[in-house]
């Protein structure tokens, strides 16, 4: 009976998908609008894409955001993996409770609090040791890595826990050493989770406005900061263009990634 999905459920689901997609569609269509007004259609044009190509402020911010997201995702993934290994492999150890609370608390912290508290820390540290001198890209990377690692830890932990330990045992019995086992067995097995965690951390960083606003300095405005200030000032059709480009870019990667994932699991697909 529940094999087939009742039509009421499907209807609600379709409305849900509509809520997610109608704004994206409208933005995409209006990014080709000739008129500056969002609401009036005045013919097809690439005008706003051309304007975007000449907008150094937006493009510069995009570059900074990508740099920050890349490095904070790397840091998040390394530390997230360490946290995951601690919880899954080390059993009971001193500091387990502390690590457990410290790595889950950032997940339940309001962003404004995280941002403000980190800013206050950076200021206090600057006063004490002169580092970081002022705030910029490095402080944003540190801030993003700090909450990013808590998310990647959760993702990697799940995979590590499900992993078949017998393979590692077999390798150990056959005389493989621990570093070799980790590099040639554990790492490849948890690789999909590492990639997923990295992408998650990247997206969280790329998308973050609030924390970055607190810990950024003059000249280190990220894309969300610039977009937010432009949106507050009023309608800027270039935002439609850059938003559409971001969505196209992300769609491209997500579709490629899921095709690869789908191909790599033929057995599951046949089931």
């Amino acid at each position, binding site marked *: 009976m529940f094999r087939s999905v009742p039509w009421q459920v499907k209807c609600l689901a379709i409305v849900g998908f509509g809520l997610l997609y109608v704004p994206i569609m409208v933005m995409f269509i209006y990014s080709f609008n000739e008129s500056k007004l969002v609401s009036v259609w005045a013919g097809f044009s690439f005008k706003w894409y051309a304007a975007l190509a000449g907008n150094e402020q937006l493009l510069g911010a995009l570059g900074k955001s990508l740099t920050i997201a890349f490095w904070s995702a790397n840091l998040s993934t390394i530390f997230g993996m360490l946290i995951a290994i601690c919880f899954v492999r080390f059993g009971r150890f001193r500091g387990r409770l502390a690590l457990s609370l410290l790595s889950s608390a950032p997940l339940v912290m309001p962003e404004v609090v995280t941002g403000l508290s980190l800013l206050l820390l950076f200021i206090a540290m600057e006063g004490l040791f002169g580092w970081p001198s002022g705030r910029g890209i490095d402080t944003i990377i540190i801030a993003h890595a700090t909450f990013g690692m808590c998310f990647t830890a959760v993702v990697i932990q799940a995979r590590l826990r499900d992993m078949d330990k017998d393979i590692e045992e077999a390798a150990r019995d056959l005389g493989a050493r621990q570093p070799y086992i980790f590099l040639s067995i554990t790492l490849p097995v948890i690789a999909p989770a590492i990639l997923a965690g990295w992408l998650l951390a990247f997206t969280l960083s790329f998308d973050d406005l609030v924390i970055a606003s607190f810990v950024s300095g003059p000249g280190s405005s990220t894309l969300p900061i610039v977009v937010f200030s432009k949106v507050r000032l009023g309608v800027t059709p270039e935002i439609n263009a850059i938003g559409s480009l971001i969505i196209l870019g992300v769609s491209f990667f*997500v579709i490629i990634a899921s095709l690869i994932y*789908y191909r790599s699991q033929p057995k599951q697909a046949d089931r």
Partner: protein
Amino acid sequence: MLTGFLKHYGRRIVITLPLLWLGVFFLLPLLEILQVSFSEARRGVPPFKPLWEFESGQFFFQGTVENYLLLLDYWEDYFGPVLNSLRLAFISTLICLVFAYPMAWWIARSQPQFRLILLILVLLPFWTSSLVRLYALIGILNTNGFINNALIWLGLIDSPLRMMQTDLSVYLGMVLTYLPLMILPLYASLSRLDDSLVEAAADLGAKSGQIFLTIILPLSLPGVIAGCLLVFIPAVGEFVIPALLGGPDQLMLGKVLWTEFFRNRDWPVASAIAILLLLVVTLPILYARYQDVQEDERETR
């Protein structure tokens, strides 16, 4: 030599590195915020007096509870946003649940290929900038936006409806931003649901409503709880959505903190509000989590 070193200390290093990072960049900042919330505001850089001062061989303590008293004195200005944050976040969570549950159900029960497509459709908005999607929503809801123009063009209304800066626009913004976060844990628990239980109940003559209420819903409850927390927590402290889509009636704590900090440059009061936010959101959830952890440890013992 390096291998020997790693063998001996490897485990300790693996534990210490993340503990150290989180201690410095998460715990210390919280203590710092607590300290600033008891400091006096002043003009200058930074705009608060240090809590301790060392002068002529003596330490002076110059803390004050004034910032918290201010929150109490103007309690309508601060207590209102507290209630507003909780109300808007709670209702947004419910709306997300209403749409996310059928979506997750549909995804979990569809053919593998179709399931992949639906999952991609859920993940795509999640990976794309929520700020950009909120901006698109403004274009739809504005007085001269998409909906109003369409309705006027159809002759259904004469003057534009006011949809921006209302509860409605805030709810729509929240759903737009947080719906995928609700769907994913729901999907995880619904796809793990054992079909044979449902079939057994159906064979024994249970009606579909009964099956849903007594089998499917209870078994997916962990997913419901996880999803609700994932939505509710960031929604309470939300800044962007009330700032862009809400008006003065949709004041939320996150926005109040932002205004105190960036516009009024009153860092001590902003810190006191942050402590208030922590008391309202984070502490109850961490306490529940702590109890879970302790229970786990008791079981593994």
